[in-house]
């Protein structure tokens, strides 16, 4: 007797692997009769287990066993046609023509129709999806020097923009935005790892099996209240049946900054430029001719240095990543153990991060109707960085402030200052910022979960999943006491840093715990052969709490004892805790008619502790439909389309990402005063609460088409989307006259965010050459609507304008003549002269141009969120050699840059080389930059204006990898199954007009440069 099913693949089991083991089980139990037998293999000849073998037009189904073998009783060996289907492979029909023992070869699916996609609380076959979903498989990540899982998505999926703003080891997570920015506050997606709410940083990239991005309402609505920004689902790798398999991969490499500021490093040139700026300001020279000539004549490099501080503090950094996985199992039970060790130095001297990770999971089927699994993921990460200003992130700024005349060390080995009169009272030696003190962070993350599934009657499944995410963090910052010494006289100059003046130590500790429990009940049924129904209902509860503690003390005797017990004075403590909870009910209904017409509905209701009782519950529905046109008879007899599907969705989602207690009025403690030197605790209202805040809601529409051509060699997927947010949760800007209180969070505004995305993929095998080309592009524009009160600043939130549009006076050029200055509008303060920036006069106090440049002339001049994001990938393999290239870019985006890097002598700092010879002078009137003036001069050139706004578009070769797989004939001799060696270059080339540092960082606003990483490594399986 055979177990028969018409449409096995309509069964939506929770995980691919469970599907597999379940099917093995049925085969071993029931396969008794044979009429036709056969073996199914892949194109390498390896047996395929779990392949569904059906008979066309009949309800007969068999499944291949672990050796790829199947047997099936059929009616007519001469005329019946077998239909073989398997996840990830092309469906194949085989006419038996009288044979009763056949071997069938299945080709891997070049498209991804058979792929099982992880969706909210379950899986679906890609063909059956009615929502907009992107998936990224592990092979996109393999062997790339990805140090944080968030980096993996860069350039790989349409609608997903990944911006890595910092390359600091241990702090190099990238920001992920799905379909641009639809809100004003937190716009990052919900991240779910193995079913639990988590973060991208909580998983070793090497352990990721797949990443699914839920982009529209249909796919994300099952996550309701937190899904408005999209959802990223990460599934970690799990064991497969078989003898223990060992996978080991290791890579070594070197990293360097994508770019560093190019600073004037010749001391005499610096002094002359400084004096020139003063001369342009009508001021006497600061560096006297005698100082300059003494410097010119000086020989001792310790006393007369020309230090290039960037090359002294920033340098190539080592990276080493190792991963070992052991997996295997029996029919009933499979396991995986994965261990990882990442050791990464930073490009700032002495920066380092180490990550140790361990992933353990187990699946077991304990009876016909019951299976369970557990999952443990542990990460321990350490980070060392500069104590100065609390992190290494600002080292670019600090090094810009170190002038070429600043010495390294004195002849006696002490930290040097300089004998030259300098502009800043504070001379800081950058070496002391990276070589002294202590700034150590330790983070531990643990995710543990378990689930079990019970199937009491066929088609009805009950799942219970519970888990916890625990994290803790420890920080230690020791501020040392360091003096710099005059390299000429040896006299003590000043203390490094502004203080605190004596040594101090801050120890901090925090932990957080999130417990999640959800349960789902699903039922799948096919009625009258043509109607497939799957229904799911569920309950979810989540509680989160965190505690933090911080202690501080001073009075250390030396720079080397850095424990709290070694301090003696002014101990201080602080600490607090917070919590939130969410409870949810949800349901989903799928209906398919003849596998052609697909309908899906989702509902979720969430209650959140962030809102008052009467505003607490939100209700989030979605509806979607799909039409698999390819299944229609009119497309049967053509060989152009191999897939054609139309789909559309509508839904409502929520966003609750605000502070925890915004609706509760509070009084703060700590507004103290000291009466007669006795500190007295005070209580004060410091914030305005808003009892009426409630969910931010997002209404999303999506229409998409999926096409496959030429046996899916070419696939095209395009979507149009339109999102309208309303009641966006945002802090309201209020004047300080309201008690100078922290403003309340309100449901402030709306945003419309719409665009389209397109992804194509083409793959072909030409002889032994296999290649694949993919391209994706997203065009998205957002517009603020219904804002309660416009939020005015350098970035504005105003009706009809892009989010955070740049709002400033517009520069129209550089004044060439005094006559031009005289007849033009200019700011009322400071003198404007030829060589200064010319601004556009658009208004005045009375709404008309008034000849004065001031705040009335501010206008929208740009936007910080790109309109275009795109990515492309190319991969090719020929015999054992494989090459892959990944490209990523953004366009139509601006970045406002200022500060040390862009303004000369900013608060006494250095000057970048682009100012040299490139400034306006009466004889260099076509110069790009205005006349050379100090940032602190009485000038209007450095007022916030579009002159300093830059085009931050860029195209970046994100990754190039070349690998060679050693032929099996050789590896078998050394008892290895698989050996691949590779070299990899990350961020090797960037194409941009952006002046200054990395354009990707500029968009994100950080100052720690991104890195170019060159690695080589080996992967071994045995």
């Amino acid at each position: 007797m055979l177990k028969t099913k018409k449409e096995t693949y309509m069964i939506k089991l929770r995980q691919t692997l469970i599907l597999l083991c379940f099917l093995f089980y049925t085969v071993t139990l029931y396969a008794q009769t044979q009429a036709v037998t056969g073996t199914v293999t892949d194109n390498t000849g390896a047996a395929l287990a779990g392949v569904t073998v059906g008979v066309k037009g009949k309800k007969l189904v068999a499944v291949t066993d672990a050796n790829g073998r199947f047997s099936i009783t059929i009616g007519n060996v001469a005329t019946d046609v077998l239909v073989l289907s398997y996840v990830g492979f092309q469906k194949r029909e085989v006419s038996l023509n009288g044979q009763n023992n056949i071997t069938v070869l299945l080709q891997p699916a070049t498209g991804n129709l058979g792929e099982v996609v992880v969706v909210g609380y379950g899986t679906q076959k890609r063909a059956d999806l009615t929502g907009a979903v992107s998936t990224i498989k592990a092979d996109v990540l393999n062997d790339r020097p990805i140090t944080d899982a968030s980096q993996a998505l860069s350039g790989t999926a349409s609608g997903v923009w990944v911006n890595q703003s910092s390359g600091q080891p241990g702090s190099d997570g990238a920001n992920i935005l799905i379909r641009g920015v639809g809100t004003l506050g937190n716009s990052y997606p919900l991240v779910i790892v193995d079913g639990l709410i988590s973060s991208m940083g909580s998983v070793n990239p090497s352990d990721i099996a797949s990443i699914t991005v839920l982009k529209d309402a249909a796919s994300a609505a099952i996550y309701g209240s937190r899904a408005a920004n999209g959802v990223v689902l990460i599934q970690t790798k799990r064991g497969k049946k078989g003898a223990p398999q060992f996978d080991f991969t290791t890579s070594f490499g070197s990293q360097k900054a994508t770019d560093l500021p190019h600073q004037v490093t010749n001391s005499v040139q610096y002094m002359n430029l400084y004096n020139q700026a003063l001369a342009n300001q009508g001021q006497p020279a600061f560096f006297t001719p005698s100082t300059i000539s003494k410097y010119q004549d000086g020989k001792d490099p310790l006393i007369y240095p020309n230090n290039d501080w960037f090359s002294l503090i920033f340098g190539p950094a080592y990276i080493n990543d190792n991963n070992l996985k052991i997996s295997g199992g029996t029919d009933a039970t499979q396991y995986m153990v994965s261990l990882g060790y990442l050791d990464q130095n930073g490009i700032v001297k002495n920066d380092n991060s180490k990550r140790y990770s361990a992933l353990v999971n187990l699946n077991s089927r304990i009876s016909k109707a019951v299976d369970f699994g557990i999952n443990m993921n542990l990460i321990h990460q350490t980070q060392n960085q500069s104590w100065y200003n609390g992190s290494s992130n600002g080292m670019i700024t600090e090094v810009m402030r170190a002038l070429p005349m600043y010495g390294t060390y004195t002849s006696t080995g002490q930290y040097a200052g300089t004998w030259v009169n300098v502009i800043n009272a504070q001379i800081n030696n950058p070496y002391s910022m990276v070589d002294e003190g202590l700034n150590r962070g330790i983070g531990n993350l643990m995710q543990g979960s378990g689930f079990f599934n019970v199937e009491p009657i066929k088609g009805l499944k009950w799942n219970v999943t519970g888990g916890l995410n625990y994290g803790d963090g420890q920080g230690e910052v020791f501020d040392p006491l360091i003096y710099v010494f005059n390299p000429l006289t040896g006299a003590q100059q000043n203390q490094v840093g502004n203080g605190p003046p004596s040594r101090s130590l801050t120890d901090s500790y925090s932990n957080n715990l999130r417990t999640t429990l959800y349960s789902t009940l699903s039922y799948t049924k096919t009625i009258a052969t043509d109607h497939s129904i799957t229904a799911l209902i569920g309950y979810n509860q989540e509680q989160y709490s965190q505690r933090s503690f911080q202690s501080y003390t001073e009075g250390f005797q030396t720079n080397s004892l850095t424990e709290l017990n070694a301090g003696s004075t002014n101990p201080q403590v602080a600490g607090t805790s917070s919590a939130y909870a969410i409870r949810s009910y949800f349901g989903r209904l799928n209906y398919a008619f003849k596998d052609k017409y697909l309908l899906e509905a989702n509902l979720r209701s969430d209650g959140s502790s962030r809102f008052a009782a009467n505003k607490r519950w939100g209700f989030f529905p979605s509806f979607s439909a799909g039409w698999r046109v390819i299944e229609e008879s009119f497309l049967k007899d053509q060989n152009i389309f191999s897939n054609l599907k139309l789909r559309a969705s509508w839904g409502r989602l929520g966003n609750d990402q605000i502070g925890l207690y915004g609706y509760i009025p509070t009084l703060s403690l700590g507004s103290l005063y000291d009466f007669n030197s006795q500190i007295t605790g005070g209580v004060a209202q410091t914030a305005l609460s808003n009892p009426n805040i409630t969910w931010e809601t997002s209404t999303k529409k999506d229409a998409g088409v999926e096409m496959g051509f030429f046996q899916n060699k070419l696939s095209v997927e395009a979507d149009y989307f339109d999102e309208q947010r309303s009641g966006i949760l945002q802090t309201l800007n209020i004047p300080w006259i309201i008690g100078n209180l922290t403003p309340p969070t309100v449901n402030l505004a709306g945003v419309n965010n719409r665009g389209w995305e397109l992804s194509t993929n083409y793959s072909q095998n030409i002889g032994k050459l296999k290649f694949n080309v993919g391209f994706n592009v997203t065009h998205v524009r957002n517009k603020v609507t219904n804002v309660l009160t416009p939020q005015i600043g350098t970035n504005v939130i105003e009706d009809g304008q892009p989010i955070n549009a740049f709002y400033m006076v517009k520069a129209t050029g550089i004044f060439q003549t005094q006559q031009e200055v005289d007849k033009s509008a200019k700011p009322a303060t400071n003198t404007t002269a030829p060589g200064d920036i010319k601004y556009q006069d658009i208004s005045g106090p009375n709404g008309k141009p008034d000849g004065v440049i001031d705040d009335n002339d501010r206008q929208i001049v740009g936007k910080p969120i790109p309109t275009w994001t795109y990515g492309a990938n190319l991969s090719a393999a020929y015999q054992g050699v494989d090459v892959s290239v990944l490209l990523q870019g953004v366009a139509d985006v601006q970045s406002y840059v200022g500060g040390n890097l862009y303004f000369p002598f900013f608060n006494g700092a250095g000057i970048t080389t682009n100012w040299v010879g490139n400034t306006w002078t009466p004889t260099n009137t076509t110069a790009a930059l205005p006349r050379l003036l100090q940032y602190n001069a009485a000038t209007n050139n450095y007022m916030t204006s579009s002159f300093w706004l830059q085009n931050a578009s860029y195209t970046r070769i994100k990754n190039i990898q070349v690998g060679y797989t050693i032929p099996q004939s050789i590896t078998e001799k050394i008892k290895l199954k698989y050996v691949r060696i590779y070299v990899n270059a990350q961020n090797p080339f960037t194409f941009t007009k952006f002046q200054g540092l990395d354009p990707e960082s500029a968009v994100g606003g950080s100052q720690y440069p991104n890195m170019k990483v060159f690695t080589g490594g080996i992967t071994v399986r045995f």
Partner: protein
Amino acid sequence: MKPYKYYIVGVLLIMMSGSCKKDVFNLSPTDKLSPASFWKTSSDASAGLTGCYSNLWDITEEVLPYMDVLTPNAYSNYPWEGWQAIAWGNATSNGPGGITYIWQGAYSGIGRTNVFLANIGNVSMDATLKARMTGEAKFLRALYYFNLINYYGDVPLILTPPDISQAKQPRTPVAQVRQQILKDLDDAASVLPAQPYTGSDIGRATKGAALTLKAKVLLYNGQWTDAAAAAQSVMTLSGSGYALFPSYRGLFLPANENNNEVIFDVQFESTGKYSSSWDTYLGLYNASYTPGWSSIEPTQDFVDTYDMKDGSTYSAANPLADPTDKYNNRDPRLDQTIFRKGVNYNGLPYPVDSKGFAGIYTGFSFKKYTVYDNAPTPMVSYQKSYINGILLRYADVLLMYAEAQNEAVGPDASVYDAIRQVRQRAGINPPNLPAGLSQSQMRDRIMHERRIEFVGEGLYFSDVRRWKTANVELNRAVQLNGSYKAGVMDVRKYDPNKNNLFPIPQHEIDNSQNAIKQNPGY
């Protein structure tokens, strides 16, 4: 195994998750109080009042010693500290930072006093203490508003607890705000004690503080008769014990805090919780001397104006003038206020470079309001300065009286006597001003006396504006003579039609939807 066991396990798990509990959402801040349960007891009232005092830091720490750099008395080299651009006439509605310190701090204090005054009525506590606390809050509200009208002119007058509806409140005419200030001060004076506080109440507002502030408000508004009367009411306030502290230098040393000259001050302490950084700002930038920054330095322009020790005006021909050092034999306050070439700084000779230029930027450093002296002195760290910032003191009462009385009546004996007291304490001998000065001559003498006596206390910027001498005083170049800035002319600009008031911070104009209008000229 039978599946039913798993049903039981599953149900148990779900029950364990607390799904039946209704209070899962019942979460509130664990380190903050709920207003609903506050304002019940006298300790609540006391803590709420302390919160009102707390904002004194905001309007003092980064402000008081810096105000003189807006005048020729002093110089600040660092634009990022938020004051230089004001002196240069370059301040805009976007800054520098110094402009917003007072605005934000004062409105924070006003919000808190308004909350206190709205709730104190419901607290069950001793009636006398309740009345005193109400008086303290009213004094503080008056002080905060006085700071606002003094620097910004018309300001929104808000007397109710903070509420979002205040966002579009326009500016109230200064006269109306002043009327409220005087009312608050009268209310406060009627309930506050005249006697000095003791123990941990030292530092609270007294009746004398309310009356002194009243005198100042009236004086700044040219209400001479009323101002003289208010000042006199302080001079005759029985039980107050007000007197000039015998040592001018000692008045500004931590050891002598809360002496009987101090009428109201901002109480700093040394742990960093409620401290200042004045020793750092004022301290000489030279590691061998202090961890200071030379952020605020007195100018030669100012130092030159000290009289001689006998009260005569300096000139090279003056018999007391020392041809080797023109700063010798001056008003003793000079060396109690200033470090100069030729004296020791913390036990070391005041630094002079090879070309003979002293110090850093101006050639002088402040001694007043630092712990540093000619003898070696232990250094004080950043954010660890704790000398109280004096807002109202008895010498000011005397000179306010003298000025108001001279304007209202003329230079009568009481005017002479008030000034004599101040000069006598300073050590000028003889302390008397020459007899027979005209009203106008006396006015000049009082102006001069105020400049010398209160330098570094932030009063001169307000004095020159109300005297209408700002157009001259704040509108000229000041020579810098320090080794880093030898010979540089620091050009100050002042437009009486504009710079008499600070610009309203742009933040307020933008976020009130233009309900708050800008001051003229900005």
